[in-house]
């Protein structure tokens, strides 16, 4: 280990334990600070101030997270996971890994929103909602009890509903928000019911205790209750990750929401759903794969994964609206990440690899998908139009951003030499080595299909001739531009950095199965 790591690690280990929650606290405080500023000087539209404050908060949280990750906080090398509040909270490698995803996506979205919200009232609301949602997600990552899981999930969801409907005068935005809220309420009910059933069987809400209970006595005559509970909880996560058949809200919400919010929801919110699903199922429900009668939730996730990959990619192929296409493609990507749960087996030697690969995919996906939606945000900002035809010839006006968009598209499709290729490859390869070659095959086939609709975007912006609607483009929004370029750079930089990311993810995932 190199000396700087040693010193930072030493410095970190001197901090009190509660500081492990540092990123969450920073995010929450930033949100409160925004409200305070707005309360002291209301009606003063200080978009830039708010953006700077919230971006600073997100970046500080990101910095702390990365520092902890490097220093080894809560990881195997430094005494294992840190538990707080009677084990309701746990900080470990996986939590930090995902917090890094949330905070980076949040930072990108904030920078991009600055231009998007120019001349908008109540921008403080927007930023504080964004910060609170991020806080909720960060809390999801550290939840170690079904109660904290539910509360943090709601904490992330409620601001999201408001964010989707932020364009109050836009009917699409409001309608999307309402639908999102209604489906969310239904799913929350299902999820909560599932939790109650699990509590009924095990008498505990702590993941570790649930796991011990299942491992000790099996389900002892309560297979039906436990099984329905597990599947209902799975349904709740499927909603959060926009997996089929809980995906219906996603295309509408992503399309109706302001594009930066779509970016935020489809990247960070989805990742948050996955982190908590990973933790709950890997930590609490692992023994259920072995009990008799079997509660084979891995198979259920396999079904969901296949459905999600197929439905997401197929539906994306028929869309004419680019934003809606991306919405469906993000459903498809949820299917890929679901492989991380579907390919788990009881005591399987590849469990850590599979889940780690899914985590790494979510990391890369976080950047490329955010970038792609931010590009849409820029196009919306210009008011060019929404369909593939409207995008024709954009590269003549904004070549740099279009290069970035091409990078995102090809990376999302998983073409070699782009980050998305390596993560998909690692994911499929680990699924194959775990014996789930058919999941990998479905993934590969649907990826091939996805190339079709992703390349349509690239074709439109680079090859086709503009059809005269591009004159409306006047300015180049600096913040949006910077965020897009940064996301592209991160997507590209994750090429050489991918082995490190994958290694970190696999180590973090393996710790769950230890």
């Amino acid at each position: 280990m190199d000396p700087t790591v040693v010193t930072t690690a030493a410095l970190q280990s001197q901090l009190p334990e509660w500081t492990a929650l540092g990123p969450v606290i920073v995010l929450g405080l930033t949100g409160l600070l925004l409200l305070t500023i707005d309360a002291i000087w209301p009606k003063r539209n200080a978009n830039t101030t708010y953006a700077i404050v919230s971006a600073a908060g997100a970046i500080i949280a990101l910095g702390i997270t990365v520092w902890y990750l490097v220093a080894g906080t809560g990881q195997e090398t430094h005494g294992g996971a840190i538990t707080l509040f009677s084990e309701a909270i746990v900080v470990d490698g996986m939590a930090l890994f995902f917090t890094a995803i949330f905070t980076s996506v949040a930072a990108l979205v904030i920078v991009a929103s600055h231009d998007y919200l120019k001349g908008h009232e109540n921008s403080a609301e927007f930023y504080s909602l964004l910060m609170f949602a991020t806080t909720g997600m960060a809390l999801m990552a550290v939840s170690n009890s079904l109660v904290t899981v539910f509360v943090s999930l709601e904490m992330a969801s409620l601001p999201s509903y408001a964010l989707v409907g932020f364009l109050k005068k836009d009917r699409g935005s409001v309608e999307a928000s309402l639908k999102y809220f209604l489906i969310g309420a239904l799913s929350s009910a299902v999820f909560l019911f599932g939790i109650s059933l699990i509590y009924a069987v095990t008498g505990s809400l702590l993941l570790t205790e649930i796991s011990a209970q299942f491992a000790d006595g099996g389900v002892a005559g309560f297979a039906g209750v436990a099984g329905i509970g597990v599947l209902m909880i799975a349904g709740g996560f499927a909603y959060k990750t926009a997996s089929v058949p809980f995906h219906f809200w996603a295309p509408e919400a992503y399309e109706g929401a302001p594009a930066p919010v779509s970016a935020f929801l489809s990247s960070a919110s989805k990742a948050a759903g996955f982190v908590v699903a990973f933790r709950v199922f890997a930590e609490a429900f692992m023994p259920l794969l072995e009990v008799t009668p079997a509660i084979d939730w891995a198979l259920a996730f396999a079904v969901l994964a296949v459905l999600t990959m197929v439905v997401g990619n197929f539906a994306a192929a028929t869309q004419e609206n680019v934003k809606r296409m991306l919405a469906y493609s993000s459903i498809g990507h949820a299917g890929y990440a679901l492989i991380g749960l579907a390919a788990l087996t009881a005591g399987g030697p590849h469990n850590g690899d599979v889940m780690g690969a899914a985590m790494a995919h979510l990391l890369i996906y976080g950047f490329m998908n955010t970038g792609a939606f931010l590009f849409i945000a820029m196009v919306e900002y210009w008011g060019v139009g929404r369909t593939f035809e409207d995008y024709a010839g954009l590269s003549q006006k904004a070549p740099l951003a279009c290069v970035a968009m091409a990078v995102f598209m090809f990376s999302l499709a998983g073409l070699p030499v782009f980050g998305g290729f390596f993560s998909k490859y690692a994911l499929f390869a680990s699924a194959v080595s775990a014996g789930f070659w058919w999941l990998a095959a479905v993934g590969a086939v649907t990826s091939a299909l996805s190339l079709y609709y992703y390349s349509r975007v690239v074709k439109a912006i680079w090859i086709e001739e503009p059809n005269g609607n591009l004159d409306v483009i006047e300015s180049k929004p600096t913040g949006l531009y910077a965020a897009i370029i940064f996301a592209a750079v991160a997507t590209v930089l994750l090429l050489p950095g991918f082995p490190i990311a994958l290694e970190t993810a696999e180590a973090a995932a393996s710790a769950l199965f230890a």
Partner: protein
Amino acid sequence: MSWIAIGALAVVGVGIPLGMMAASALLRPSVPEQGKSATYESGEIPTGTARSFKFNIQYYMVALLFVVFDIETVLVFPWAVIYSDAVEVVGITRALGPMLLFIGILLIGLVWAWRNGAVSWTKSPRATRRKTERGDA
């Protein structure tokens, strides 16, 4: 086997109302009349359509704030009951601190909402317009 009981309960639960409705449909005479199909509004004659019926948005704002502080009270009450004991066990910082933090967070929210005009009763544009029209007349 225990599921049979639940199944039976479900059958009975669905069966009784369906059976009663079926029985009455068979027995009763059919005399359609306008008064029977009208919406019951406590004896008032209904006017307009159900869809155009709107509350002022401010009602929800106040209701929301009320719910928030109502729940806060529910949480604070048991805390207050055990407060003295808690201080003895964990000390005043750990007993009082979290609650102050909680109330502080709520307070920030309240102040923000107040300053942004959540509790000042605004009038809907339509009501304002109607009032001015009446004034003109």
